[in-house]
């Protein structure tokens, strides 16, 4: 870590002496291990350590960025001077610049992002996780005849950030994921589903057998899927598909979408935008959180931000830039693209769970659709119009009756938020956006 810090400081110095009025530099190092197995045999095995350096310079109110995997002195030296040269060719932008130094902290909390225990797990054991998950799925039922494989991924990453205002910060994190994707066969064709889990700590990762069993159940329940007639019914998103719904909410509250006026939630701070059941918080300081970090990619000390509270829109999420554009405070959501430029990203963006179990939510629904997979990109984030391919289980008289596919669900996100009827008690994390089961009063299902 000290070597990376030293490199980052060096690059900042180089930028300053080369004529930049301000600059910040981020270095990421990732040590990754990845294995895929299929039908009990290793299919691919991949290991590497990779580095990337992301530089942003300001020359007055002008800016440019650069990125490289080549940390050699000669490449960096020429890249720094070229980036400064490029900045001079861009336009003056009054909202540009590094964050206010008052937003930096020197003491960072321990967010428990590293599990040192991973170091003791041998490659053979890691391969075995994937094999066990797949083997459990394959042996779950005779309908499961094939597999798209199982995989285990592990990464340990180091992040260092330094800038010309004297900020220097570093943190590490470990992350693992285990997944399996079985294939079941019936007379009318094949069905594939999957299950996976992600965790920073070994003890938070479910056993390979649990994941294999769940994947098998999810796959078998899709066999015999049919279409349904076009109709308007209540929709229940399971936690996996509800997460995608929350992703659509995130896109609408990101500060850049607000100043561009490309969001269906523009101009609505303080207004009721969702049902009173909806409370959403973005919290970067969740212990062991998959999206947690002590400071954002601009060095701003992170904190929790209330987005929607009992249906009322409280805050948008900001980088330094979007905050200046809208006279708001940065929320610590500046994240760097691999290109080096700063965008706005979620940390741990969560829909607060309710009191009701998913079983009770299903039981409360006379006729409806329980959605288990969404495909395609049919979301208009500007108008909120929503139309996506779906796979689900049809609900009849409060019971999961039969699987359905080759259908779409459609509506408008503005109305979907207001139509949230019930929220489950089963908040599940698959990444930095998380949700429990969500029931929406009605949407149009298009089928036969």
């Amino acid at each position: 870590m000290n070597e990376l810090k030293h490199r980052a400081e060096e690059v900042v110095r180089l930028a300053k002496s080369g004529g930049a009025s301000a600059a910040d530099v981020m270095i990421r190092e990732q040590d990754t291990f990845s294995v895929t197995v299929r039908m009990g045999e290793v299919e691919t095995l991949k290991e590497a350590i990779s580095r990337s350096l992301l530089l942003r310079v300001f020359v007055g109110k002008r800016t440019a960025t650069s990125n490289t995997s080549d940390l050699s002195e000669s490449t960096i030296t020429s890249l720094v001077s070229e980036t400064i040269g490029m900045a001079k060719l861009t336009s003056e932008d009054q909202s540009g610049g590094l964050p206010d130094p008052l937003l930096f902290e020197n003491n960072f909390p321990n967010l428990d992002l590293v599990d040192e225990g991973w170091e003791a797990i041998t490659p053979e054991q890691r391969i075995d996780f994937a094999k066990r998950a797949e083997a459990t799925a394959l042996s779950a039922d005779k309908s499961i005849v094939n597999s798209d494989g199982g995989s285990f991924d592990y990464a340990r990453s180091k992040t260092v950030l330094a800038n010309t205002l004297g900020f220097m910060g570093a943190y590490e994190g470990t992350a693992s994921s285990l997944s399996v994707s079985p294939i079941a066969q019936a007379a009318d064709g094949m069905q594939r589903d999957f299950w996976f889990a992600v965790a920073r700590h070994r003890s938070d990762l479910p056993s390979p057998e649990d994941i294999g069993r769940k994947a098998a159940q999810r796959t078998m329940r899709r066999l015999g899927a049919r279409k349904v007639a076009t109709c308007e019914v209540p929709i229940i998103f399971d936690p996996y598909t509800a997460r995608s719904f929350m992703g659509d909410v995130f896109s609408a509250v990101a500060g850049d979408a607000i100043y561009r006026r490309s969001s269906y939630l523009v101009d609505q701070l303080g207004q009721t935008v969702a049902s009173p059941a909806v409370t959403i918080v973005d919290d970067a300081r969740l212990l062991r959180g998959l999206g947690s970090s002590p400071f954002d990619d601009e060095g701003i000390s992170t904190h929790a931000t209330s987005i929607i509270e009992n249906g009322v829109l409280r805050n948008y999420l900001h980088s330094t830039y979007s905050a200046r554009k809208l006279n708001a405070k940065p929320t610590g959501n500046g994240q760097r693209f691999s290109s080096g430029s700063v965008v706005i990203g979620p940390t741990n963006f969560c829909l607060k769970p309710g009191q009701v179990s998913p079983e009770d939510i299903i039981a409360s629904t006379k006729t409806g659709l329980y959605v288990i997979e969404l495909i395609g990109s049919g979301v208009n984030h500007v108008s909120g119009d929503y139309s996506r391919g779906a796979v689900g289980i049809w609900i009849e008289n409060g019971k999961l009756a039969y699987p359905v596919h080759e259908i779409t669900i459609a509506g408008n996100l503005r109305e979907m938020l207001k139509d949230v009827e019930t929220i489950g008690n089963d908040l599940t994390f698959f990444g930095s956006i998380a949700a429990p089961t969500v029931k929406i009063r009605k949407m149009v299902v298009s089928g036969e």
Partner: protein
Amino acid sequence: MDGLRVRTDAGRKMENKSIFFEKYNITNRDLEAYLSEALSRGGDYADLFFEYRVNYMIALEEQIIKTATKGVNMGVGIRVISGEKTGYAYSDDLNRENILKAARTAAFIANNSAQGGKIGLDPSVSQEQRLYSIRDFATDIEIAQKISLLFEADRTARAHDPRIKHVQASYADETKHVLLAASDGRSVWDVQPLVRLNVSCIAEENGQRQPGYSGGGGRRSLDVFQGDLDPRTIAARSAAQAILQLGAVDAPAGPMEVVLGPGWPGILLHEAIGHGLEADFNRKKTSAFAGLVGQKVASELCTVVDDGTLPFRRGSLNMDDEGNPTHKTVLIEKGVLQGYLQDRLSSGLMKAPLTGNGRRQSYTHIPMPRMTNTFMMAGESVPADIIKTVKKGLYAANFGGGQVDITSGKFVFSTSEAYLIEDGEITSAVKGATLIGDGPTVLRRVTMVGNDLQLDQGVGICGKEGQMVPVGVGLPTIKIQEITVGGTEK
């Protein structure tokens, strides 16, 4: 053809022209040593994929150039194949020790004591330069010229209509040097240019807002931005789409007759059949198309090809990322399935010929079968006549993205510009809607094929297992007897 041509037998002369030999002083001997190390534990095959990529991006918004970005990325990926197993490792620099270490890591997959034997490489040759000029790279052109393209686009979009309130335009280019050396003795290299211009607009009226988007590019230099890809033309298309959407009515819901316009709607082929015909899924029998070669999967009007050899196209390559020349591969001929898109691993295991479709996002990724430019050959119908035959249906002129579940065969693609057809006439514009269908059956329902084949404008990005690669699609106007349209208007 105005590409620089190099005959393969002139290879010796070209030997020291690749950046890896010239700038990084790599020799054939080094390559042989790395390959030997990769096969030190046995294995059937090994290859080295060297990549050096320079790219620029420039972004305009609110009538100013907000930022410019340069990227310099390089490294080498090392692959060892043993039976159906692949070992992979990479290094972010070209330091000899680090490459040897990566070779040993990749070698870990094989566990035979048998040695691969001494590797003898033929002298490195440039892959025959058929498809793109290597004399004039966009990445060498001064930034001011690129910036002026963006200002031109911005002015045009704004002038198009006062309801256009926000314009974002971005320019991106790259030059990718690649070198592939393999234990079968091949050593080939290529230099691959790529440029792109995107314009997105927001139109606003009475509190209603709608987006518009258009773009274009290809494997050439700034000279691509003329005619149909002139920045002003791209900007006007983007603005027109946003304005059109302001007046759009709710899209219909349910199955109906759909006419797809020419060009980018070819995304239908990419999702409905293209992915399902990638050899890895068929070798593993996880595709809904597995075992259907020789069978009728489409109406006789349909002939579908994947062609990586079209000059200057975004999806084209002189060689794939396994060093094999790209091909024109007929996937469906007059409705009958002909074969799959192969990479080295699947073609070896399936004993099928290579098709030059082994591609990867970068040196950090393992190659797999991917599409290049996928399109349907033109038919005989006049497009206007096709519309006239529809009593009540949808005309889809443009699309956003799509996705497919290759196992069940279900696929979607979402309209970004569509209209109702009523009594043979195109009438109101409708809001965006997702169309959903079944890959192995949708092309059986193609009842008319137009004589107006068009390829897309060069902005496609295809994702598979987390790897993104540039691709092209194309389509003549076609009529599909029935497909489910996912609107809200029952």
